[in-house]
C-alpha cells in the first residue's frame, strides 16, 4: 500500500477499500523498516498523523471530500514551520525550536485533509546537495545506502522513494527538489517562482526559493501542486492572477510540440550513462511526434557562478536573525555582540558558515559591483536566453544532474565539486521558471537517472504534459530493495 500513488490511494479510499488510518499504518510500518538505514525523517509525528488520518476517515464517512490529498500521508521538509512541532532546518542553532505558527503550505495541506507524517531531513538550511550538511546525521540513498540521496530535500526524496510517505514537500533554491528526486528515482518539481507561498519556509535565498512536491508519479505531482499553489496575501511575492490547471495537458502527448535540447547542459562532466539515457529519451520523444531541436543558452555557462554569489548574499541576510536572542541556541557572552557571534559560530555548521561568509563578502563595500551586482546582470542574461529559446520551442530538456548518486563523503571536502551537482537545475531558479525531474531508469550500477523538463513561467501544464510522456516512454516502475533490518 505504501507504494501506492496518490491517485491509486485516493481512489481506494473513495471506493471504501482503504482507509486513511490503514494507509498511515502501512506508511509508518515502512518508515520503521527503513529509517535505520535511510534516515529520511528528523521527526515523525505519530500522534498528530493518527489524528489527521482518523479525521480524514471521519470526513470520508460523512461524505466530506476535501480533494485529492484527503487522507494522503505527506512528509514535510524540516525547513517549513509547523505549529507546535519542532522545526530545526537541520541546524543546531534551532535545536528544540517549536514554531508558534504554520507555514501556508502546511495550512493548505491540513485544510486539504492531508496527513502530515513528520519532518524530513535536509542539508542545514537547505544548503547542500547531499543532506550530508544536516546537523542531525546524513540521509542515505535507498538504492544504495552507501550513497547520498542528493539534497537538500534528500529526506523527502528518500521517504517517497521507500514509501514512508506518498508525497514529500521539498524546497528548491538551486535544484534542491529536482536533484534529489533524480538521485532517488522519484518525480520532483519546482513551480514557477511566486506560485507557491513561501510564508513559513525558513528562507535560504528569497528570490530563488520555491516549495514543490516530490511524488511517485507525474500525475501525483500535478495534483499536489494544484493543492499547494495559489495566491497568499502573506507572501508579497505571491502571484496574483489566474493559475492554470496543472493537469490540463496530461494525456495529450507530444505530437507537434517543439522540444529544445540545451547544448550547454551536456558534454564534459556528464556521466556516459546519464548522457546516453537522456539522448535515448530525446529520440523517443521525437518518435512520439515531437520536433526536437538543439538550443543554445550561452549564459548557462556562468549561471553557477552567478548563483553562488546571489544565493549566499541573500542567505547572509536571511540567516542574520539567528542570533541567540529570541529563539534557538545561545552561547554565553559578556556583551550582546560576543554572545551573538559565539552563538552563531557554534550553531551553524561549516557549509552554512561558508556561505554566510561568501555572501557577506560578495555584498561588502568594494566588492559588491564586481560580484553581487555583476551576478544580477548574469541573471538578466539568463532570462533573456530563456526568452529567446521559448520563442522557438515549447519546453527545454536536459539531464537533471550530471551524475547519479555519489558516494557519501565523496564531495564533502570539495565545496566546488558539490556545487557542480546543481549545474543543470540552477538556471530555472535564476529565471523563476518551472522545471521537473522525471526518472528515466537505472544506470549500469542500478542507480536512478533523472530527466529535466523546463517550461516558461506558468507553463506548468505543458511541462507536465511532456513529463507525463517521458514517464510513460521511460516505463520506470522499479522500487528500491532495501536489505531489511530488524526494527
Amino acid at each position, binding site marked *: 500500500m505504501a507504494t501506492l500513488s496518490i491517485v491509486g490511494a485516493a481512489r481506494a479510499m473513495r471506493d471504501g477499500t482503504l482507509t486513511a488510518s490503514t494507509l498511515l499504518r502501512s506508511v509508518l510500518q515502512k518508515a520503521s523498516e527503513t529509517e535505520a538505514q535511510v534516515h529520511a525523517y528528523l521527526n515523525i509525528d505519530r500522534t498528530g498523523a493518527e489524528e489527521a488520518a482518523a479525521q480524514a476517515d471521519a470526513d470520508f464517512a460523512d461524505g466530506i471530500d476535501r480533494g485529492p490529498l484527503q487522507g494522503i500521508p505527506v512528509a514535510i521538509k524540516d525547513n*517549513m*514551520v509547523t505549529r507546535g512541532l519542532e*522545526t530545526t*532546518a537541520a541546524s543546531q542553532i*534551532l535545536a528544540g*525550536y517549536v*514554531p*508558534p*505558527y504554520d*507555514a501556508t503550505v502546511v495550512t493548505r495541506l491540513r485544510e486539504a485533509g492531508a496527513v502530515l507524517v513528520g519532518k524530513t531531513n535536509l542539508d542545514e538550511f537547505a544548503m547542500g546537495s547531499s543532506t550530508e550538511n544536516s546537523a542531525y546525521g546524513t540521509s542515505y540513498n535507498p538504492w544504495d545506502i552507501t550513497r547520498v540521496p542528493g539534497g537538500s530535500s534528500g529526506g523527502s526524496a528518500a521517504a517517497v522513494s521507500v514509501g514512508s510517505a506518498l508525497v514529500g514537500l521539498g524546497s528548491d533554491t538551486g535544484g534542491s527538489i529536482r536533484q534529489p528526486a533524480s538521485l532517488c528515482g522519484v518525480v520532483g518539481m519546482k513551480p514557477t517562482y511566486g506560485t507557491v507561498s*513561501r*510564508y*513559513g*519556509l*525558513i*528562507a535560504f*535565498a*528569497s*528570490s530563488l526559493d520555491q516549495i514543490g512536491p516530490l511524488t511517485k508519479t507525474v500525475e501525483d505531482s500535478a495534483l499536489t501542486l494544484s493543492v499547494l499553489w495559489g495566491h497568499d*496575501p*502573506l*507572501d*508579497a*511575492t505571491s502571484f496574483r492572477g489566474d493559475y492554470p490547471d496543472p493537469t490540463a495537458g496530461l494525456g495529450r502527448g507530444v505530437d507537434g510540440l517543439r522540444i529544445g535540447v540545451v547544448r550547454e547542459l551536456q558534454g564534459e562532466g556528464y556521466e556516459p550513462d546519464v548522457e546516453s539515457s537522456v539522448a535515448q529519451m530525446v529520440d523517443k520523444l521525437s518518435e512520439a511526434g515531437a520536433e526536437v531541436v538543439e538550443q543554445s543558452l550561452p549564459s548557462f555557462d556562468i549561471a553557477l557562478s552567478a548563483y553562488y554569489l546571489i544565493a549566499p*548574499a*541573500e542567505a*547572509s*541576510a536571511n540567516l*542574520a*536573525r*539567528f*542570533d541567540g*536572542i*529570541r*529563539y534557538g541556541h545561545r552561547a554565553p557572552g559578556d556583551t*550582546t*555582540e560576543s554572545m*551573538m557571534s559565539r552563538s552563531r559560530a557554534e550553531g551553524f555548521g561549516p557549509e552554512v558558515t561558508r556561505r554566510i561568509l561568501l555572501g*557577506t563578502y560578495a*555584498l*561588502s*563595500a568594494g566588492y*559588491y559591483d564586481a560580484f*553581487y551586482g555583476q551576478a544580477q546582470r548574469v541573471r538578466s542574461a539568463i532570462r533573456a536566453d530563456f526568452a529567446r529559446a521559448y520563442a522557438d520551442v515549447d519546453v527545454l530538456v536536459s539531464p537533471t544532474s550530471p551524475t547519479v548518486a555519489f558516494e557519501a563523503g565523496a564531495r564533502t571536502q570539495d565545496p566546488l565539486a558539490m556545487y557542480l551537482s546543481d549545474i543543470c537545475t540552477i538556471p530555472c531558479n535564476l529565471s523563476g521558471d518551472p522545471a521537473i525531474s522525471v526518472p528515466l531508469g537505472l544506470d549500469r550500477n542500478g542507480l536512478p537517472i533523472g530527466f529535466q523538463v523546463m517550461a516558461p513561467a506558468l507553463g506548468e501544464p505543458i511541462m507536465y504534459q511532456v513529463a507525463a510522456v517521458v514517464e510513460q516512454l521511460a516505463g520506470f516502475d522499479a522500487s528500491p530493495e532495501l536489505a531489511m533490518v530488524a526494527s
Partner: protein
Amino acid sequence: MTWEPVIGIEVHVELATDSKMFCGCAVSFGAEPNTNVCPTCLGLPGALPVPNSAALDAIIAIGLALNCTVSPKSVFHRKNYFYADLPKNYQISQFDVPVCVDGYLDIPTDYGSHRVGIERAHMEEDTGKSTHLGGGGRIDSAQSTLLDFNRSGVPLVEVVSRPEIHSAAQARAYAQGLREIVAELGVSDARLEEGSLRFDANISIRQVGDEVLGTKVEIKNMNSFRSLELAVAYEIDRQIQQVESGGVVIQETRHWDEEAAVTISMRTKEGSSDYRYFAEPDLTPMEMSEQWINRVRETLPELPDARRARYEEAGVEPVLAAVLSSAEPPIRHLFDAAVAVGATPRAAANWLTGEVTAWSRRTETDLDDLNLSGSTLTKLLSLVESNTVSPSAAKEVLDGVLRGEGDPLVVAEARDLLQISDAGPIESAIDETIAANPDAFESLKAGEEKVLGFLVGQVMRATSGKADPKLVNELLRSRAGI
C-alpha cells in the same frame, strides 16, 4: 576667521497607522512589553513582510507636502547590521530609489524665509526598544539589556535634508516646520516626548566662502526642539574651538548628553558601518502611478505655506498671517467661518490670535470648547466697526459672549458698554477732564498736538471707555481752537 556651519538634518517620523509597516500588529504607544508582536515583526524563521498601503499613502503625502517628486518606481532594500533590538538583523529600508526625492521646506528666519532642500524621504521600519539595566540605565554601564519588540516594524519615514542649514536656530526652525507639516497631514502623532519624531544632525564647519565641506560629525539622541538647538550650537562651538586651537575634526558619531549638555563620542568601532544594501527579495517593486499620487494629493489638507499665502491674499499682513497659519486649528476654523460670513479678515485675524487666544489661556478654556462661532465673532467686529462699541469695550463684550451671556449686542447692553455718540455726555466729561488737567489743555491750545492723545485717553476713562474716541477727538480740537 569667520566660520560657516553646514548642517544637514535627518528626521525619523513615526507614522500613526493602525497596523505596523509589514504586519498586522497594532501600532500603539505604551502597551505591555512584547504584546504587539507576531512572526514577522519578531523575525521568526519563515515569516515574511507585506507592506502597509496606508504607510505608502502617508509617505507620498509627506513628499507632496515637502514639494518632492514622487518616484514613479521605488524599491525596498535590506540594510544589514546586527543590533539586539533589530530582530532580523537587517532593517527593511530604502537605498538608491526612495519614494520621494528633491523637495524643499521654507523656514522663517530673522532675515526672512530660508529654503532648505530636501534630498529624499524614504520608507523604513522601526526597531524594538532596549532598556539597559544596572548602572542607572546608562548604556555603557549596564549589566543586562531588556528587549521589547512592540515598536519593531512600526512604519517610519526618514526625511533627509540637504546640508543647507547654517545655524542652530535654523536647525530648530526646520525641525519645527517639519513637525507642523506631519501634524497637519495627520500622518503622525508628532509627539516628540513619545519619540514620534527623532532627529540626527550632520554638522561640519568651513570658512565663509569655501566651496568644500568640512569633516562632518553626526549627532544623535536629540529628543526635543530645544535639545536639537542646544546640541547643534554646542557642536558648532566645539568644532570651531577644535580647529582654532590647531586640532582637526574627526569624522565620528557623537551622542548628545542632555544632562551634561555636551556631545560625547560614541566609541563606534571602525568598519562597523558596511550596511551591504541589496534589493529586498521578499518584496516586489513599487510603482507610484499618477492616479495614486493624485488620489493622495486630493486628500491633502491645506498646508501651512499655502495657508499663509491665502491669508495674505485676503489682506492679513504677513506677520499676522504667519501667526494665524500656525495657530491651533479651532482658531483657524473660526477665522475661516467669520470671513465666510463677511468679517474683515485683518480684524478677525487680530482678534482671534490676540484677545480670543489670550482669553482661553487666561481662563484655561480648551480652544475646542470656546463658546464662539464665526457669525458671533463677525457681529462683534461689526459693532466695533460701526462705532457701536469702542475697541476697548469690545474686549469686555467678548468676555461676556465667551461666558455665555448672549449675543454681542445683548452683552454690550447688559454690561452697559454701548458707545456714547451723543455730544452731551461727552461734553460734560470733557469739562471734567479740562478742569482736572488745566496745564495740558493750555498746551493743547498752544498747538502742542502730542498732549491730544493724553486728553482723549482721560476722557475715555471718564466715560468708562464708552465714548466714541473719534468724536472726543473732534470736540477737544474745537474747544482748543486748533
